[in-house]
């Protein structure tokens, strides 16, 4: 039996103590922790989920939310750019985008060819939304059909106005004054990490596109190749003022165009009010609607193929307990109702390893009303 002396023990501890996690991992994990904490605090994650349910019922909101989500990537860079300190021709063009605090733009989404499996656009080919924003936490959307979405994170609230029904849905989605790291509603600000990435890797990822005319204005363009899976972006700026006038982001077959950009304009504070206007009322229990999406399937033994009776199948959703779920019958079948949203479903039975499968894609299940998920559990 070898003797371990104290010096050896201290040596081992010292090796452990030398380990420093990478900066990227720390930043990523802190951001995730912050976000989940904020969701918990605001009573909680379920509220965001309920709000998404409401957004997903409205096609144009759904498409617009998807467009922002595509841009709202989490990139971790060592360098935090001070807009005034970056230099160079490309930097001159993107500087206003890094510095802008309030403004407006139009967001046009062309989804005529659909091949992204996680999003179901329906048949709307092009949509344009007017966006006004003030700071990272306050955004106002106007749709061509009159729907309005106001996100005011300074109050921690999101309001959706549905003029045809004269309904206003106001939800407290976070504590007042806490701005989420991930920008859920402002496409322009959500592009910042990609721009910072381009500045960081300018030699490899930025290409000058030359000059062209857009609506009678001579513009110069730069093409930014984003990191994998984050899409490519073309930024066109007025050749004289260097202010961006048009941004095109393509990802897969989806194109999002930001145009008619105004920088640091004075805005009416009422645009960001989350008080429902006169004549609007809250929908009857919309957010607390009973689940009506069917999840069903069979649970079998992965080795024998025999059905497992009494297996518990539950979804972990995003909310608090009790979770939706069911127990399998003698044929290994189960069926239960839940909400049409992204969540994982877990099957477990005594003597077997639990298995999880996901309804992935926040936007995918909205137009379906049933999902079949079969499980084959491995014996322990």
């Amino acid at each position: 039996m070898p003797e371990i002396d104290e010096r050896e023990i201290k040596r081992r501890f010292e090796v452990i103590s030398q380990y420093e996690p990478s900066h990227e991992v720390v930043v990523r994990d802190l951001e995730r922790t912050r976000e989940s904490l904020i969701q918990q605090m605001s009573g909680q994650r379920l509220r965001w989920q309920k709000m998404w349910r409401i957004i997903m019922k409205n096609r144009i909101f759904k498409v617009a939310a998807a467009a922002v989500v595509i841009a709202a990537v989490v990139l971790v860079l060592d360098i935090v750019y001070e807009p005034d300190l970056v230099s160079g021709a490309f930097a001159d063009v993107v500087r206003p985008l890094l510095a802008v605090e309030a403004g407006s733009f139009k967001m046009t989404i062309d989804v005529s060819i659909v091949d992204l499996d996680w999003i179901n656009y329906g048949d709307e080919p092009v949509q344009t939304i007017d966006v006004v924003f003030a700071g990272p936490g306050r955004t106002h959307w106007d749709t061509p059909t009159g729907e309005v979405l106001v996100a005011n994170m300074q109050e921690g609230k999101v309001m959706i106005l549905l003029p045809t029904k004269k309904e206003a849905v106001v939800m407290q989605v976070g504590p007042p004054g806490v701005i989420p790291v991930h920008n859920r509603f402002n496409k322009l600000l959500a592009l910042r990490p990609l721009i910072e990435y381009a500045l960081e890797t300018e030699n490899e990822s930025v290409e000058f596109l030359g000059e062209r005319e857009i609506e009678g204005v001579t513009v110069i363009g730069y093409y930014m190749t984003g990191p994998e899976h984050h899409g490519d972006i073309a930024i066109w700026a007025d050749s004289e003022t260097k202010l961006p006038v048009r941004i095109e982001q393509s990802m897969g077959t989806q194109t999002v165009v930001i145009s008619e950009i105004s920088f640091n304009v004075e805005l009416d504070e009422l645009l960001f009010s989350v008080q429902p206007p006169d004549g609007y009322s809250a929908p009857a229990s919309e957010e607390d609607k009973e689940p009506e999406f069917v999840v069903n399937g069979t649970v079998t033994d992965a080795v024998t193929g025999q059905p497992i009776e009494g297996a518990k199948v539950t979804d972990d959703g995003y909310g608090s307990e009790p979770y939706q779920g069911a127990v399998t019958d003698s044929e290994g079948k189960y069926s239960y109702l839940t909400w049409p949203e992204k969540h994982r479903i877990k099957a477990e039975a005594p003597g077997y390893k639990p298995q999880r499968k996901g309804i992935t894609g926040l936007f995918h299940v909205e137009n379906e009303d049933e999902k079949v998920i079969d499980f084959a559990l491995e014996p322990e």
Partner: protein
Amino acid sequence: MIERQKKILQLLNVSGPRLHRLLTRLIRREDVVGDLLQELFIRLWNSKTFDKAENSFAYAYRAAINLAYEWRRQQKTTSQPLQENCPVSKDSSSALGRMIQAEELERVLDATSKLSELARDVVVMRYIEQDSYEEIAERLGKKPQYMRSVCAKALAQLREILTNDE
């Protein structure tokens, strides 16, 4: 309630990196440390005793150590081999060397879990986080000499545990 939210978010901002590093060192799995950090802060948020703690960082620090060892205990039951997510040694250049070293580090961490909670926390603070006895004493509300004595006894105990194990 708002004050409480601010307090815990501030703790995350100020001490989050340190707690993250502590968890990473104790579990030696960079791929799961994010989940544990989230779990830690959710627990703090839901904890009533956290509100009463005079030093919220000290409370979180010990909660992190507890959580890491809880995770290690759970891992024991599934016997997950050590991954190479964390570089372990400067002189363990060969694959075999790295494996041996990783095993050694796991053993010393496992042995630490067999100490009393106080001794375990003191050893982690002293030898893994390399805090001074004064800092440890302040955090735990004890005297530095006592911490020194706990540490010395814990080392002797670890020697015995490891000698019997290896």
